């Protein structure tokens, strides 16, 4: 029997594959297609205090091996979530990580405090890195002192795992990772989408209504791997590796560079069963390679080059 599970601040994740926020709704949309209980966990669509309409169309553009999105954090708001979605999520046998987004530090605190009073939530992922909204989101995520402040304010409010989702749209993501680790975050999620753009040459207009959006999918996987690697060198706390993971092989790469677990995102849009297929794939890979624990892959990268050498050109 291969050990697939891991734990974070006392919360048991049955395997190392979660689904990323914003790519799996609130878990109920796909219950006909996916046995969600086979996932390591579900990160919900971002929740804010009040419902958000999101951005006007066009919100999605496909690009080579990737996609741009500018959804603008359309969500039902935390009150509707508690009423309409949480009862279903409570019935599931998988870790429920609620993703929180806000346009002020106080709003983050209010949403988390309200959720703390509910049953059935296993942890929180703090989104400080959405590139598609004017207020909050990336404004916070690219400001190291703000990222630090949000973590510091949220930490005393919960004893559950607090995960901060970081943006790659900064010079040194590891500085941000160190900052949130210093404030008591239990883990970081690396990476959110990259700011990117596409142009319609016929109309000479940007294809997205908001001009730029967030790039995801296989196109960003090599970047994401380098970011996870950078953060892994700097941190002791676990990393959720995210970015273009489509296959078991992709997930293994993330584990090897130092991710404790992975989140599958864009792949859910193409095949919502990707996460459970990868979880099965990791177990099979461990069996075939004589590992007792999938966790033996974490950080098992063999490299002759010291990170300090890499850092000089990063």
């Amino acid at each position, binding site marked *: 029997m291969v050990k697939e599970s891991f734990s974070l601040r006392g919360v048991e994740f049955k395997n190392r594959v979660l689904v990323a926020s914003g790519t799996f709704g609130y878990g109920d949309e796909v219950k006909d297609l996916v046995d969600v209980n086979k996932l390591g966990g579900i990160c919900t*669509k971002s929740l804010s205090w009040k419902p958000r309409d999101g951005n006007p169309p066009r919100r999605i553009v496909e690009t080579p091996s990737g996609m741009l999105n500018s959804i603008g954090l359309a969500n039902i708001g935390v009150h509707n979530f508690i009423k309409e979605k949480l009862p279903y999520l409570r019935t599931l046998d998988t870790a429920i990580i609620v993703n929180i987004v806000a346009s002020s530090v106080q709003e983050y605190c209010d949403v988390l405090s309200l959720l703390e009073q509910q049953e059935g939530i296993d942890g929180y992922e703090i989104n400080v890195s959405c590139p598609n909204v004017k207020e909050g989101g990336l404004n916070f995520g690219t400001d190291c002192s703000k990222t630090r402040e949000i973590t510091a304010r949220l930490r005393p409010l919960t004893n559950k795992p607090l995960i901060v989702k970081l943006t790659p749209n900064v010079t040194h993501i590891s500085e941000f990772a160190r900052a949130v680790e210093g404030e008591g975050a239990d883990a970081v999620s690396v990476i959110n989408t990259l700011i990117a753009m596409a142009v319609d040459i016929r109309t000479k207009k940007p294809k997205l209504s908001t001009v730029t959006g967030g790039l995801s999918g296989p196109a960003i996987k090599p970047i994401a791997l380098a970011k996870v690697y950078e953060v892994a060198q700097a941190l002791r706390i676990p990393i959720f590796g995210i970015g273009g993971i489509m296959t078991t092989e992709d997930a293994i790469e993330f584990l090897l560079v130092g991710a404790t677990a992975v989140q599958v995102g864009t792949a859910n849009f193409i095949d919502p069963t990707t996460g459970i297929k990868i979880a099965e794939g990791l177990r099979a890979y461990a069996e075939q390679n004589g590992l007792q624990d999938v966790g033996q892959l974490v950080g098992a990268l063999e490299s002759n080059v010291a990170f300090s050498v890499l850092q000089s050109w990063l």
Partner: protein
Amino acid sequence: MMLQRIVPVTSREEIAEGIFTLSFQSKEISESVSPGQFVNVRSGDACLPLLRRPFSISRVLGGEVELLFNVVGQGTRMLAAKRQGDMLDVLGPLGVPFGFDGEYETALIVAGGLGVAPFPLLTTTLKRNRKTIVTFLGARTAIHLTPAHLENVQVATDDGSKGYRGTVVGLLREYLRQHQVSRPKIFGCGPMNMLKALADLAREANIECEVSLEGDMACGIGLCQGCPVERSSGKKKYALVCVEGPTFNSKDIILP
């Protein structure tokens, strides 16, 4: 109930210039589909293109499902190159069907270009429901017309190479001027500017009108939130084309 299935291609035909039908075998999907619904299809198994492509279900023949599309980019080019026996990854049936069984007598079907795709199946269903059908079919030129499996077809072409010279909505306007239509309801699908003109005409003529929209969707099942259309009333600003549409009463939405 939506299903994700790997199914064999049974036929592929070029029925007009650059316009193809592609059929696949799936008893389950064929038995559960209603007119106006769509399937989301992977063109290949690599990352180019990455996302599925949504297609209206055009016809159901026994256990086979037929799609109708034109080649616009890499995904549709790959689908147009499929051969009998090739396997296809299909997700469906998806979306809200046309409200075909209401209190009306005459269905006015209005199709612009490839917007004709959902109407052969709707026509079959309406005939079974003993509705009178008049179909208005518009295309740029005569070679792009696809009138198969429709009823009572009136044709419009932009260049006048066949039928009425002008838009398909212009043709419908003329028709309504000249005919007394008994308890009509409009079903429309086509380019956005055509649907806007159609919704305007429906409002002026006080005829109930359902339109089927295209959306830029990544998933087709409500996960990505990528395909909003503005609602004309209510608390929520947007509806999602994939799960709340693709068919809408034209009064309920604001076409962009």
